């Protein structure tokens, strides 16, 4: 039932560059100096700055381990060195500093931390009671003025479960009730008293947009009730946003006269038009994705990822040409008309056509098994005569979503200089029997399956969720 709710939501992203792998320009410095400047609309303003501080990390070497780097071939029986929260070296061997904690990987597997670019953790928290249902501001078909982070409950017990599933970074999106649902937030899957302390420092915001059945169903009679009504809604919003952007860009350049009045919704959309916010567009059908691409062209923004694109395989060539990633499921489908043509070969077909594939969840349970979803899609590819290597499929879970979030310079692969976000798996991660044994974020081991007493329990869980009663 929950998943249903989430299914109503999705996102669109506009801001991407080339369709080829990697390369994101470094995030512009956040302007946190806007204290007392709430009346003005400043590009890259950061009124809710991240207060994340990495957890204590030991210099760590994992040796005798098979390493999927997401940046090259599998390193068999290799080693990796983590120091000061970063990956220092990875290869057949590494120099272990004297003070390093040395972990014998015993022939197991290491991958980059899994990145789920479609999550509603915290905004649709568990238990799924109305009081915690904060994902859809279904009061207006266009709500670019809401920010998902203002709904996130850091004590959602789903966070530690995701971490135990190897997920280290999440994009939490507003729901898909609205044409324009609001800003997403990128979180590290870490315990925190405040959402600010979970926010990924320097991450760009995303904008959630939604096509098709959800908005027209939710607003029937009081908003768009048809797909053509949906499209008119997007275009109207962008027309207003473009006027707003021009006004503010001019004022920010010359500071002549009174500043224009600030509008939260237009401000977010103007940031998309400036390329500072990435568009994540929930869109199932091929024909609607093609229309959303035309709208993006009309207003000069880019879509970073189509989410839930169950028909992405029908326009995989177009996605490749436009440099738009497909955030998709392995095998969800048929729950509504726009999901009818879901096929298990979607990921393999889209990958084969040269577009970026991302395994996403939209589900607190599925998010913990994104590796298994990728494995199902690989099997479907093999059956289609489109074999997908494990090295390739690892990218669907790591560097490709990192790119969709504009963070592929920091996370998503195991390369020197990148954040030490990684997972030690009990077996090949594409096996149904594999489970994460240890998970590191910024070099700190935050999950250890062998040490239940140290495992993260949210405040809510204390007393309510029974443990160790067997």
């Amino acid at each position: 039932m929950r998943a249903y709710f989430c299914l109503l939501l999705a996102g669109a992203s506009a801001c991407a560059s080339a369709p080829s792998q990697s390369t994101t320009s470094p995030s512009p410095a956040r302007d946190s100096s806007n204290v007392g400047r709430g009346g003005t609309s400043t590009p890259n303003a950061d009124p809710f700055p991240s207060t994340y501080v990495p957890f204590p990390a030991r210099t760590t070497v994992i040796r005798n381990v098979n390493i999927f780097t997401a940046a090259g071939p599998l390193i068999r029986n290799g080693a990796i060195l983590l120091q000061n929260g970063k990956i220092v070296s990875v290869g057949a061997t590494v120099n272990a500093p004297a003070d390093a904690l040395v972990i014998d990987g015993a022939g197991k597997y290491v991958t980059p931390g899994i990145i789920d670019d479609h999550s509603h953790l915290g905004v649709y928290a568990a238990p799924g009671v109305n009081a915690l249902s904060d994902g859809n501001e279904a009061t207006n078909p266009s709500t670019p003025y809401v920010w998902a982070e203002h709904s996130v409950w850091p004590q959602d017990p789903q966070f530690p479960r995701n971490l135990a599933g190897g997920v280290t970074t999440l994009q939490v999106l507003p729901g898909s009730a609205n044409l324009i649902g609001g800003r997403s937030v990128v979180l590290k899957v870490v315990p925190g008293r405040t959402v600010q302390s979970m926010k990924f420092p320097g991450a760009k915001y995303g904008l959630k947009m939604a096509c098709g059945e959800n908005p027209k169903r939710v607003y029937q009679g009081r908003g768009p009730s048809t797909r053509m009504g949906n499209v008119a809604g997007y275009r109207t919003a962008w027309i207003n946003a473009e006027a707003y952007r021009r006004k503010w860009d001019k004022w920010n350049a010359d500071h002549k006269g009174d500043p224009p009045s600030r509008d939260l919704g237009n401000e977010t959309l103007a940031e998309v038009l400036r390329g500072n916010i990435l568009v994540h567009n929930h869109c199932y059908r091929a024909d609607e994705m093609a229309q959303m691409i035309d709208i993006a062209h009309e207003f000069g923004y880019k879509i970073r990822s189509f989410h839930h694109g169950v028909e992405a395989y029908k326009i995989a060539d177009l996605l490749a040409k436009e440099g738009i990633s497909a955030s998709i499921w392995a095998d969800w489908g048929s729950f509504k008309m726009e999901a009818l043509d879901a096929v298990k070969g979607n990921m393999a077909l889209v990958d084969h056509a040269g577009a970026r594939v991302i395994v996403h969840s939209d589900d607190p349970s599925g998010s913990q098994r994104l590796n298994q979803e990728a494995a199902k899609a690989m099997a479907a590819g093999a059956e289609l005569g489109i074999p997908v290597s494990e090295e390739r499929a690892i990218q669907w879970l790591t560097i490709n979503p990192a790119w969709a979030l504009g963070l592929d310079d920091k996370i998503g692969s195991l390369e020197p200089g990148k954040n030490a976000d990684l997972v030690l798996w009990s077996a090949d991660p594409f096996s149904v029997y594999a489970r994460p044994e240890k998970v590191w974020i910024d070099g700190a081991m935050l999950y250890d399956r062998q040490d239940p007493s140290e495992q993260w329990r949210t405040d809510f869980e204390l007393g309510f969720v029974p443990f160790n009663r067997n």
Partner: protein
Amino acid sequence: MNSYRHITRLVIASSFALAASLPLAAQTIAITGGKVYPVSGPPIENGTVIITNGKIAAVGANVAIPAGAQRIDATGKIVTPGFVNSSTQLGVQEVSQVSDTRDMSARGKDNIAAAFTVWEGLNPNSVNLAPARKEGVTTFVVMPTGGLVAGQAALVDVVPGTTTDMMIRAPIAMVAEIGDPQQAGVNSRGELIVKLRELLDDTRFFRIHRDAFDRAQTRPFAASRLDLQAMIPVIEGRLPLVVTVDRESDIDATMRLAREYNVKLIIAGGAEAWMMADKLAAAKIPVLTGAMNNIPAGFAALGQRQENAALLRKAGVQVALIGNAGGGDEEAFNVRNLKQEAGNAVAYGMTWDDALRAVTLAPAQVFGVADRVGSLQPGREGNVVVWSGDPFEFTTRVEHVFIRGHEYTDKTRQDMLMGRYKTLPSTHNNPPSQ
């Protein structure tokens, strides 16, 4: 042929006690060389399975192959019974958000719909059947949902034809739910039990005073005549009652009620069943649950954990695995993912053998049809799957699926779509049909 038709008619007349076999598989099939898991006994290296006239005729290491048998070489492969998914809405829910395709719930009267026979709405042409079969699910329970008493479930094989052709047994169970009191039209959990007790009580009375009822000489009953009628086999212990229930205290209350009325109880869902595994084992109450959900999705499921199935099994409870991911594999589209559920059960502590049993023989025993399906033994239906490797692993392919001795190789709708779009045309017109 005449006698076959005659038998078929008899079968239907006896309310699906025995299903008709269509298409009639007169052929003899010999599956040789594989590692055979009969489930009812130890695995057999280099084993042979003989299917004759739709039934398993012989299984073993030294089985003579009848002359003229069609041979299937399973060398290096795994041979198992067809998988049984024992809680689905397959065939009664095509597109879940399109009401016209949802036929798994009855309106009933005051949330009681015991008379509802969900299989009457089963669509044998559902496009979700072929994908399930293609991935090794040969048999499934179609269950009604919703309300306090949802109705009656049936056990069917995934074969083409009519619902009658598919049928193994109907009804196979009565289905009730101790869930959200508000959704069931009452105010509290205790009141759900009161309503169930009232129904059981009225059924008892109705059973012995039917004549008085027909003469309108009884007090008013909580349920309709047909509902009471349908409940009689439940209080006589002939038809099990599946109760979907999660919270420990609700499971406990349900068990007490079942004991009071001598009801043969099956727990479904059972998020917190692991917390009382010993009691369930002692009472010999089976549990239908999954291994892919650990979300405390509501206050009744705070103890939800992926080890549930393994802990129950360890305590000696009969466990049949079903989809429970909470938004994925319990959907009709993904009844096929039962094998993933089994693999996860192993990852969370169940033995591999028990996981295989939990998707084959265990559900057959739970529903009293172990003489028909769930194992590879002479006389059972010829429901056999040949796997390229470990059935639970993603890299494993289903190489052959036999149901009642007939091999199915039909393309699914998804196969057709992928065939059409595998090579995209240079324009944005549709590619030619394949």
